[in-house]
């Protein structure tokens, strides 16, 4: 799909021939994120449909206690210090951003009066600034008004390196100017295509200036409110025990009518995913549990009781295989898998192509992941319903055999193919995790039929995913021929996600293996496309560039996508909770309710 066809699609939406929703889903299908698609429409002057709320209760409160189970409990409640999603979710009960992203990628105003657009003058034509208008009459839990000063403060707070905020990347390159008491202008250093990151979504929660002002910079850790959040959210803070329990009670002055539904909220932490699923789906002790990393077989069995269900939303996480482009067995300057080497087997494109044909994605989905892993050919997200028609995957042992045969890889007496004295023996590593070992076995079996010998290796997750420079078994060192893991997509805009295949990001000894290009695949064409996308303001052109990048990565066969991993949560049958794959689970907590 090129720029022109994208423009045609947008025209179709404008003329009403294509629904907004279909448009978004088409773009998701070709490997773009929903928020990006939504933004393209905004730039083209197609106003966002007012997302219809499904919230039914007609009065505030009366819903009892909402019991959430997070098998990894929140350890801190300052969103600017959040280390993982568990901390973001804990903070999200009390703090709110200006806007969140719903599952279709629409921006939903939360503390903003409206979403900036070209029509309302919010978006500057040169892409260097955006004006946010704040909702009037919003109060912090302690009664102080929420104003533009709070936004300016959040920017100063997070951008200050001494604060050591984990949100620094979002705020350090922008400037925030107060226009009046309820509007601010966010100024970017260069034309910025994706403007809805600061103050939006997971990294946009806003903390009150009047309580954190004295604790900017070095003193940030001393702020008493790091543990006692005072926000604008639907629930007020009651009690927090790190790693165990977060409790809140209804905010009677909440800025939305009839909300929230529940009188109190509890977020219990600890334990493991399977028993969390049991507590929600089987016994009904809890209403909601997060991140169900549980085999689908177990979920299905639990669901038979009828007290709850597994809820699946699409996001951008992908389980994929990396095929090393460098040689892991030769050491150059104290480093294996060095850029100065080439992989003796994988430098032959026929071998990579054959491997791609030997990954039986459909079986992996059917027999291992079920609903929690959907077979895919794209590296960027790909929910089942909207699968792109242009990219396909195939499982074909015969074709793989033919490919290898014609490329000169002949079978030896032991059934293993060889060429020029080099045997097709490959070491394939991953972390220790039951579904991954099963996937390894499926691939090994297919490879055997094609005359490739796979040696399977499994590394403890705590070592494999560590950044320990001294350990040879980490995934970033990739001292191995092939490996498999899930790449998580943490931002709604694909730029940071796609940066991982640029040449500058190659993981090497020089950068202590912190680079994100693990397969060490390099392509000038890709780099050029990425650089162009970085400053390309026209969202349509930019989207076309991302599509191109996705296709380049897939065509290289150094990256073999296996299954797309949607987000799975457990919910009580009567709970109604709008979820989004592009934001936190609790992004729209104000609209959660229990059906009578």
């Amino acid at each position, binding site marked *: 799909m090129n720029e022109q066809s994208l423009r045609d699609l947008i025209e179709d939406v404008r003329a009403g021939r294509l629904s907004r929703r279909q448009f978004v889903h088409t773009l998701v299908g070709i490997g773009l994120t929903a928020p990006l698609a939504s933004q393209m429409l905004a730039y083209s002057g197609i106003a966002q449909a007012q997302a219809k709320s499904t919230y039914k209760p007609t009065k505030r409160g009366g819903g009892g206690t909402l019991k959430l189970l997070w098998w990894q409990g929140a350890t801190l409640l300052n969103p600017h210090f959040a280390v993982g999603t568990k901390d973001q979710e804990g903070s999200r009960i009390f703090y709110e951003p200006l806007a969140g992203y719903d599952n279709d990628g629409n921006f939903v105003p939360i503390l903003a009066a409206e979403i900036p657009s070209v029509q309302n003058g919010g978006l500057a034509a040169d892409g260097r600034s955006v004006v946010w208008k704040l909702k009037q009459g919003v109060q912090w839990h302690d009664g102080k008004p929420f104003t533009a000063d709070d936004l300016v403060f959040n920017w100063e707070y997070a951008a200050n390196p001494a604060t050591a905020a984990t949100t620094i990347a979002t705020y350090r390159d922008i400037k925030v100017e107060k226009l009046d008491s309820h509007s601010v202008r966010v100024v970017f250093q260069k034309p910025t295509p994706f403007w809805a990151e600061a103050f939006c979504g997971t990294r946009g929660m806003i903390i009150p200036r009047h309580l954190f002002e004295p604790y900017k910079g070095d003193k940030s850790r001393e702020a008493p409110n*790091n543990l006692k959040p005072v926000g604008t959210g639907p629930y007020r803070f009651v009690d927090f025990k790190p790693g165990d329990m977060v409790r809140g009670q209804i905010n009677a002055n909440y800025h939305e009518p009839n909300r929230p539904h529940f009188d109190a909220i509890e977020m219990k932490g600890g334990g493991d995913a399977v028993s969390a699923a049991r507590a929600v789906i089987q016994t009904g*002790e809890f209403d909601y549990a997060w991140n169900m990393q549980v085999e689908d077989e177990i979920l299905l069995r639990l669901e038979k009781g009828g007290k709850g269900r597994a809820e699946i939303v699409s996001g951008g996480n992908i389980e994929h295989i990396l095929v090393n482009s460098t040689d892991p067995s030769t050491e150059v300057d104290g480093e294996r898998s060095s850029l100065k080497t080439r992989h003796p087997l994988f430098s032959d494109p026929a071998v990579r192509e054959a491997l791609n044909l030997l990954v039986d994605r459909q079986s992996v989905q059917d027999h291992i992941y079920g609903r929690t892993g959907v077979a895919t050919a794209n590296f960027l997200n790909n929910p089942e319903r909207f699968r792109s028609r242009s990219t396909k995957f195939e499982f074909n042992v015969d074709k793989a055999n033919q490919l290898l045969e014609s490329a000169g890889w002949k079978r030896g007496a032991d059934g293993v193919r060889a060429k020029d004295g080099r045997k097709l023996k490959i070491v394939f590593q991953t972390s220790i995790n039951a579904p991954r070992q099963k996937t390894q076995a499926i691939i090994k079996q297919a490879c055997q039929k094609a005359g490739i010998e796979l040696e399977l290796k499994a590394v403890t997750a705590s070592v494999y995913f560590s*950044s320990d420079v001294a350990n040879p078994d980490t995934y970033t060192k990739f001292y191995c021929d092939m490996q498999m893991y899930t790449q998580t997509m*943490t931002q709604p805009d694909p730029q940071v996600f796609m940066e991982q295949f640029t040449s500058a990001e190659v993981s090497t000894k020089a950068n202590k293996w912190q680079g994100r290009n693990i397969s060490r695949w390099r392509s000038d064409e890709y780099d050029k496309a990425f650089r162009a996308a970085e400053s390309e303001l026209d969202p349509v052109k930019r989207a076309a560039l991302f599509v191109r990048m996705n296709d380049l990565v897939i065509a290289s066969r150094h990256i073999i996508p296996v299954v797309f991993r949607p987000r799975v949560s457990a919910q009580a049958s009567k709970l109604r909770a709008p979820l989004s794959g592009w934001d936190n689970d609790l992004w729209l907590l104000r609209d959660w309710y229990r059906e009578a």
Partner: protein
Amino acid sequence: MSQYLLRRLLIIVPSVLGISIVIFTVLALAPGDPFEELATNPNVPAEVRAHLRAKFGLDDPVAVRYVRWLGAMLGGDWGFSFASRINVDDLILGRLPTTLLVIGSSQVLALLIALPVGVYAATRPYSIFDQIANTLAYVGFSLPTFFTGILFILVFSIQLDWLPFVYRSDISATGWQFYWEHFKQALMPVAVLGLFQGASWTRYVRSAVLDVIRLDYVTTARAKGLGERAVVMKHVVRNALIPVVTLVALQMPAIFGGAIVTEQIFRVPGIGSLLITAILANDTPVIMAVTFVFAGLVILCNLLADLLYVWLDPRISYR
């Protein structure tokens, strides 16, 4: 006696130092980094992590870090949790009451089972009651707590739906309801720990009583015309319990260890589950502090056991 006590207290100093050095070095050598999650998150620039590491002094050599930690510890500063960004002592104090409640009640339960059953079985050795008690005791201490824990959950929570299997330290109910809820949720973890401990103690009590009950002075007491009850309670049990009391004191730390697993299974927010989360998050100061508390408990309980000997059995004297 006081001289002995002083000597023992002095020995504690080097042992505590030794323990702390060992734990600290092992933790320093272990792979992992408290800010690992930041390293794998592309949205967090590497400088943030470098800054945090520098701020918490993680880049210094192990020896320097150890001396700094020791200095702070002597000054009563337990350190600062990387994961929660709060003081470690607050974190531990917040968790301690729950652990003490659960472990305390399980010990009471264990004693309530072990004493009567053990004594009764010993007074009627090889009777039907003794045989059954023995068999059950064997079963009890052969089954590890993580197994019985899950078994209890399956039977009482999932099949019968009688008891909750998620322990909550905050219960919003008041009055009787509050105690009832607490009782219900504590029942399974307490039973798991208590039955396991009770089983091994039963056997211990039985053999201790059995040793004493055959002695001549017991026969004398009987010959004197005392009732069976008085003989057993006043003459036998009192003497037989001396080794049992020390055993209970010595096993205290082991119970804290066993509670770690049980706490994890039932999501009991005690220091055991704190330790597990801290280990998973590589939160060194918290791991250090919790293991140190456990180490301190071992030493204290050992000392207590030795002192109890003297108090219970005047024939033993320390010089």
